[in-house]
């Protein structure tokens, strides 16, 4: 109270008494504004009748039981396979083992295409030696604006880190 006398500033009458009320009004106003936003409140997806009541995960146990009942067939299959391997192992020339090069390039490409490797840049660098790479492959490729924007969109977490003018970004 002393402070007020000192600084001579005044507030409209009843300002603090009604502050909370006005604040709540404003919050409500904003909430209504949000509700009347263009974006619909529901997105229209539905599920089949009783889907959640009947949902069951195909548990591991079920699979294990299945495996056990086929166990004897696996033994039979394994013994036949062993015979074949023995037969071919003896008849094939020992000097032509299958090498990595024998795998068709297409198959390798297909493997890398369809498998998520989840390797970090450092891990890739450990496998691929620098001498295998043409340094020009990196510098000669010009990046299209579209690619850069896509990269930034997906990888930059905080747009503000880029120190861009907001208008420029839009």
């Amino acid at each position: 109270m002393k402070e007020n006398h000192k600084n001579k500033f005044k507030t409209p009458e009843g300002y603090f008494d009604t502050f909370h009320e006005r604040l709540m009004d404003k919050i409500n106003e904003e909430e209504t504004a949000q509700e009347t936003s263009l974006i619909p409140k529901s997105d229209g997806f539905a599920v089949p009748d009783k889907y959640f009541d009947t949902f069951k995960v195909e548990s591991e146990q079920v699979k294990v039981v299945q495996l056990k009942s086929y166990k004897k067939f696996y033994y039979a299959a394994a013994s036949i396979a062993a015979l074949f391997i023995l037969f071919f192992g003896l008849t094939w020339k020992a000097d032509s083992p299958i090498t990595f090069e024998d795998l068709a390039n297409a198959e390798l490409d297909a493997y890398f295409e369809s498998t998520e490797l989840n390797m970090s840049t450092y891990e890739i660098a450990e496998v691929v030696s620098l001498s295998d790479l043409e340094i020009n492959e990196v510098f000669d490729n010009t990046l299209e604006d579209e690619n850069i924007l896509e990269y930034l969109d997906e990888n930059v977490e905080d747009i503000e880190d880029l120190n861009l003018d907001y208008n420029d970004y839009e």
Partner: protein
Amino acid sequence: MIAEETLVQELKQKESQAKAFEVLVNTYKERLYWHIRRIVLNHDDADDVLQNTFIKVYRNIEGFKGDSKLYSWMYRIATNESLTFLKQKSKKAGISNEELKMSLVENLQSDVYFEGDEIQLKLQKALATLPDKQKLVFTMKYFQEMKYEEISEVLETSVGALKTSYHLAVKKIETYLKAD
């Protein structure tokens, strides 16, 4: 609500595992389903991914260290499973991820489990134009009504960055919906 820690302990012990897993599935199936459905859009695909998510949870529960909450760990698995599912689907079809997303939205028109009207269909088209992360943040906040702190745990992104993403997503969607 079951205590998460007790449930995790029960899941790790052979004798209580089956029962605890049932509780886990029943507690989280709906929430995870809606999270997945909003990424893959189609009910059958969502069902497949939900199955895979729970199977992964079951197989990996041993490795769950409790650094994050159980539900955010499961949401993370569900998110990764859904995005990987879409990637594989687009590869199989020989089209880009963007093309796939657009075709999924087109298919909604004839989907019996999509009851949306024109505006809701347009919303899905708008969402399909967003980068994955912005779309995730938007649906988690707007439709799943998750708190920023919860989303932050799932997506491993700071709350500040999430707010920026959400704001950008809303602006882009509104612009899309306004345009004819």
